[in-house]
């Protein structure tokens, strides 16, 4: 699948999981990659410092979110003063339209794109393709994924699901280069191909890591240089950025950058930190003539409504939560079918596309809490996942979440009602228990999805109460 389709999130989730689990290559590729990334991150943090650094980053993000509308206005006016044109989009489609219109108005023909998860979220490539425009991904991982007509499987390392052998074959088949497993040669092929694209491109598209309200600056983090190419060489630069990302002060950037690169790839800093404060000025010899910033809402202002769920918006998109997730490690990024996989994706997708479309993603969580511990801005991901599970079956009062209660089934609801009632009536509960233990031989051998992969459940021969009673009796007899 080369394009993300929100309508398949719930409906194909089960099948995607089965496909992933049945593919041993996926499992071994992810296991190796996740171990590597976790070890690199661990080497960067002293556990005793981490809590303090996390608290600092969390406080900055909380402060900025508490002032979000003011900071967005400030960002807009500072950017405009710098000559950056600012656009606002309530939905992904609106953002894609704005970008398409800019390209059309500029007579743009060749579009290069630096890595941007926001454009994956809006499905920009598909929208541009539909308008007859060709958009080349230039991050090596994204380029590999685009060549293979797939979607990224990780927010930081998009082609992490492929190993060298698979990439070698892909290049051989798609680019006609001699088959080689030498990584330097393969990267050299990508470099040469994409260099030409950079040289010819008239439009460059990128994401933004930190937009700074105080100075009207767009900060981009990267190692490869394709982000710099895309934002420097073409005549027009268009940046797409979620509204939640804005930071208040320039001095907020270092502590957040400190956490971002260490959490993401275990680097104390990336090769490039690119801070853009405007288009080419008079007298300057290069840089784009126009810089556009497209601010994307797409559900974020709705997420802002609920004080607990709002914590989602602190995310700085480092990927540490997926690197530490035992479920993600086993099923890989494509199993989620969403642009943001893993724990953060499980929290973001249902809030953007609705519980009716994406609520089932929250089921792929064991509540082990590793993601929360790794998160550089302390997002309580398991708590939010549990909350969304509840909202999925709860249709009374609450936050403006689309699809609330849509996952409720009458049978399940009735079952829980009976269970609650039983628990509130001790004598009936005990009667139920003694029946269940005595009639345990009659428990069903097939229980839908549960018994497809697991042994059937059978009540114990004795209830816990009874077991404790007999133990106490035995102890009394001995004394």
């Amino acid at each position: 699948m080369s394009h993300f389709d929100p309508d398949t999130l719930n409906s194909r989730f089960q099948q995607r999981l089965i496909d992933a689990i049945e593919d041993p290559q996926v499992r071994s590729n992810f296991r190796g990659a996740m171990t590597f990334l976790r070890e690199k991150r661990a080497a960067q943090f002293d556990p005793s410092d981490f809590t303090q650094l996390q608290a600092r980053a969390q406080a900055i993000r909380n402060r900025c979110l508490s002032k979000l509308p003011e900071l967005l206005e400030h960002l807009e006016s500072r950017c405009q003063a710098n000559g950056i044109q600012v656009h606002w989009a309530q939905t992904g489609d609106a953002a894609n339209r704005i970008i398409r219109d800019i390209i059309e108005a500029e007579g743009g023909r060749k579009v290069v794109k630096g890595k941007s998860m926001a454009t994956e979220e809006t499905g920009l490539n598909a929208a541009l393709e539909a308008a007859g425009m060709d958009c080349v991904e230039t991050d090596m991982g994204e380029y590999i994924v685009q060549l293979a007509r797939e979607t990224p499987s990780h927010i930081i390392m998009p082609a992490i699901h492929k190993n060298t052998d698979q990439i070698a074959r892909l290049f051989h088949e798609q680019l006609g280069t001699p088959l080689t497993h030498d990584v330097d040669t393969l990267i050299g092929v990508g470099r040469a191909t994409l260099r030409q694209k950079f040289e010819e491109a008239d439009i460059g598209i990128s994401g933004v890591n930190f937009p700074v309200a105080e100075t009207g600056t767009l900060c981009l983090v990267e190692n490869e240089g394709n982000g710099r190419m895309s934002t420097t060489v073409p005549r027009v630069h268009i940046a797409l950025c979620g509204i939640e990302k804005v930071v208040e002060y320039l001095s907020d950037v270092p502590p957040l950058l400190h956490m971002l690169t260490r959490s993401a790839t275990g680097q104390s800093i990336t090769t490039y930190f690119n801070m853009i404060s405007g288009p080419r000025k008079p007298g300057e010899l290069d840089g784009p003539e126009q810089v556009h910033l497209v601010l994307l809402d797409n559900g974020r202002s709705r997420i802002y409504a609920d004080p607990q769920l709002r914590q989602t918006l602190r995310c700085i998109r480092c990927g540490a939560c997926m690197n530490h997730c035992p479920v993600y490690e086993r099923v890989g990024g494509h199993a989620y079918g969403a642009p943001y996989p893993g724990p953060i994706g499980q929290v973001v997708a249902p809030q953007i596309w609705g519980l009716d479309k994406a609520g089932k993603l929250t089921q792929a969580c064991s509540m082990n809490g590793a993601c929360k511990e790794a998160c550089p801005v302390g997002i309580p991901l398991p708590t939010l996942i549990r909350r969304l599970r509840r909202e999925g079956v709860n249709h009374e009062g609450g936050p403006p979440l689309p699809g609330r209660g849509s996952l409720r089934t009458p049978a399940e609801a009735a079952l829980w009602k009976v269970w609650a009632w039983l628990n509130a009536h001790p004598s009936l509960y005990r009667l139920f228990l003694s029946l269940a233990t005595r009639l345990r031989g009659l428990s069903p051998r097939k229980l839908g999805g549960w018994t497809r992969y697991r042994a059937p459940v059978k009540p114990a021969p004795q209830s816990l109460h009874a077991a404790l009673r007999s133990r106490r009796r035995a102890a009394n007899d001995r004394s």
Partner: protein
Amino acid sequence: MTDRDAILKRLRHFRSEAGIEPAHTPDTVHPPTTSGANLEGFIGHLEAAHAEIHRVSRATWPRWVANALEHEGWGRLACGANPSIAEPLAQALPPSALWVMDQPVEQVKAALFHEMDVSLSQARAGIADTGTLVLETGPEEPRTLSLVPPVHIVLFDPATLVPDFSHLLAQRGYAQHMPTNLLLISGPSKTADIQQTLAYGAHGPKRLLVLILEDDHA
């Protein structure tokens, strides 16, 4: 209502409904992460990131560059129209080996992309705790120079070293005035996108040479 107004209105509405006040923070300065600016640490980080470090005399660095061109077999070196760099280089290099970028990129794109073997820039500062070079781009330091040629040489004056990024922002007053493009560079371009195997020269320079300028001791 425009998208802008609708978004802002929704944010304000939800915030007041949730009874949340915009936070007021008196401190805009975050505590520095380290105390001193240590040149050895700076060099160590850069070397770990695969940069090549050379300690070079402040008086004779252009000669060093001329020698490097000869040894490495680099035909042409590009630099910006910064007299304090371009003039000494013009004296040390044969005219055919020096290319000063003094026209808009549109007019010299082919030369920049295909004819330059190496480029040279001057760092404004260095950050010790991450091994980072700070470049302020402008008319005399075009953005593409530090990006397009396959080898990048940076002149670095150790007197400009600061302990960390927070110090840099404060010391150089960037909050009051940002250059069009402020760049932090911490090594040659690289990628680990093929099975976590590190490869240099993904899209930017394959090699980064840092010339640490030292005073001559007689």
